[in-house]
């Protein structure tokens, strides 16, 4: 259901959409059942002249089972949801597949800094590419992200990836995603981070391997120096 509003652009987006649909169906069933019974009871037992209410304590077995049976069924539904939730959570947050590339994501008031591994594919090497509010990814590549914050709490949220993780100063949090859809999408900050919280957006560019390589070429120190000779080069 979510994918009809927000495109699914990562390898695990379907899992989130699936668990949403599953919970929607299960809780929707119980919700509708309750509301239908509820309104039916209201209409059925509206006060009528000369028809007093019945005296029911709720301990009569033949009536009480109308509570206890749904009670058990709710518990069973909960077990289904629990299993699915644990599975999805494990896949996305706990389990880390082997990365092909790693990016560093740094939140600060009020911008995102992204450190790309550069052409050699290794982070913290001399050809790292550091950008502000622009994340360039290669399609169908397993990425790890290392999430940091320099001041307050931020939250790295990419709705199309179904990815969300708080950035906490004083911690490095690792996670993963694999983009599966080329295009340009939103990165949002999803944790209150002060006055500029509403401005703290970035863009993620998911590109094919060739386009990604071409982008990297434009970001090489040589290319940058050629384009902006007067400026400081955007890497340390």
């Amino acid at each position, binding site marked *: 259901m*979510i994918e009809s*509003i*927000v495109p699914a652009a990562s390898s695990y987006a379907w899992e989130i959409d699936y668990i*949403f649909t599953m*919970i929607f169906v299960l*809780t929707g069933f*119980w919700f509708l059942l309750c509301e239908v019974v*509820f309104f039916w009871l*209201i209409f059925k*037992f*509206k*006060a009528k002249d000369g*028809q*007093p*209410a*019945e*005296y*029911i304590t*709720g301990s009569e077995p033949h*009536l*009480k089972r*109308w*509570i206890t049976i*749904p*009670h058990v069924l*709710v518990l069973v539904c*909960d077990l289904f949801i*629990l299993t699915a*939730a644990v599975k*999805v*959570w*494990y896949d*996305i*947050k*706990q389990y880390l597949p082997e990365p092909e590339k790693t990016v560093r994501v740094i939140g600060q008031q009020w911008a995102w800094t992204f450190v790309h591994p550069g052409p050699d594919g290794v982070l913290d090497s001399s050809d790292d590419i550091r950008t502000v509010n622009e994340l360039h990814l290669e399609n169908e590549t397993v990425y790890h992200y290392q999430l940091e914050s320099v*001041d*307050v*709490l931020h*939250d790295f*949220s990419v*709705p*199309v990836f*179904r990815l*969300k993780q*708080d950035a*906490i*100063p*004083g*911690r490095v949090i690792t996670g993963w995603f694999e983009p599966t859809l080329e295009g340009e999408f*939103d990165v949002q*900050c*999803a*944790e*209150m981070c*002060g*006055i*500029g*919280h*509403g*401005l703290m957006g970035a863009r993620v560019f998911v590109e094919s391997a060739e386009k990604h390589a071409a982008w990297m070429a434009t970001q090489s120190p040589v290319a940058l120096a050629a384009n902006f000779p007067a400026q400081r080069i955007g890497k340390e």
Partner: protein
Amino acid sequence: MAESIPSDSPAVADDHHGHEEPSFWSKYVFSTDHKMIAMQYMFTGMAMAVIGGFMAYAFRMQLAFPGIEVPGFGIVTPANYNALVTNHGAIMIFWVAMPVLIAAFGNYLIPLMCGCDDMVFPKLNRLSYQIFLLSAVVLLSSFFVEGGGFGGAWTAYPPLSAKAEYSLTPLGSSIWLGAVALEFVAFLLGGINFITTAMNSRAPGMKLYDIPIVIWMIVIASILFLVSVGPLIAGAIMLLFDQQLGTAFFDPARGGDPVLWQHLFWFFGHPEVYVVLLPALGITAEIITVFARKKLFGYKTVLHTTIATGVLSFTVWAHHQFISGVDPRMAHVFTLTTLLISVPIAEMMFVYIATLYGGSIRLTTPMLWGLSFIAEFLIGGVTGIFLGASGADIYFHDTYFVLAHFHYTFFPIAIIGTFAGLTFWFPKMFGRMMNDRLGKIHFWGTIIPFNFIFIPLFVLGMGGQHRRIFDYSYFPELSMPWMQDIRVLATSSLLIMLGFQVVFFYNFIVSLRSGEKASKNPWKSNTLEWTADSPPPHGNWKELPTVYRGPYEYSVPGRDEDYWPQDQPN
């Protein structure tokens, strides 16, 4: 019947009341009478609700029409916006839901329903209100200091809240925190009073299972509050020191851990949901039994599920923090407990619905409110499952889905619960009946727009719209035309809903002055408060009642009337 109560005749009541004419100050301001303190809480809470509603109006206007000059407020800057949403949340929970549902109804109902003349500590009660009033004044003053009101969200996560260079509100954040701490002190004092009164001062003959459910609920809520708030009080002191003295309890750059605050906050914050929920559920239980003329379907079931919910509510707190940096393995534990807590709450809902079975339902205004509480709270309940399931929460955390979810719980609690209780006990409180027609107009004028505010917000949440963003035009995916249309729909519904509150205030004031005189027991209810005069004099009864049976003996076969007051020997 009601006529058999000794202190029945108006002459007696007047005599009881009239031998000393208290001055205005001792009667209305420094009264120790639980009913007057209840009214003070009620009207302070309502005034704060008006302020909180005005804040909602201001920031909803900004969201629907970014950048316009909001009539009555002006331009909503980002700093304004943050301060408005922060204080809207804090006010509606701490200064509206708690004072009205726990303090006002607790103060009013506990002595009357337990059959005693006052709270056990009347002066402590007065002190508790005075501290509460002070806390409200302190909170509102935070808007007028240098830097403006605190804008770090009502959860006040450090380091944003801990350092002025991050929050840009050097005084506002400390004043806000101080106000919250004062409010906690007020409710600790009040809570001890409620618990002790209900435990120790019940009428002779009133055994544990003869206590009306609403009293149980208020007492259990007070206990939950009392037991859960401690860590947050400690945390508030630590955060205040971080702000004002420069300590580093939550400063990660100097050996602190901001996640500790989140735990301290939510260890209180989650039980707090039940602290305000339970009294509203209790009010609903009283109303549906009276107007369905039915015994509650399983008094003990309700009680046991309430206690189970209360205990479980201490084990679920970290589901608010799934993606805020808690260890991923812990999420499994908290998902399990969160899904478990849905079971007793679901059962309680089933019991309420089942109570209607075989009833003789009268759709008066209070009954409409009571029924709508169940219907609307169900939406809040089922949408909670999406957020409690860790996997789905990855997507929904901090989106408008969360916002719509907890408004579907807090709106039924704080607004529907309050209106239900107020319209139900209005005859007892003020001795006059409320206008039923105006009441119904107000009911439909509130309930229908309410759904049109928040159902669309669920859709926005599914669209990935995050909270606390003052203008979505900076995010291409969130500024699509259909999303903006939904925001306009929600805001216009809010305006309609706020407009209909005028009907309520009109009805309230007119009924107060010239409503039909209420008899002692206009709804033919069983519980003890209806055996006192309307309104009850100081001391409530001339002769305190004795209890002979449970509170929900309606439509007992073989009796002439369909109700059987608790204080009648037979």
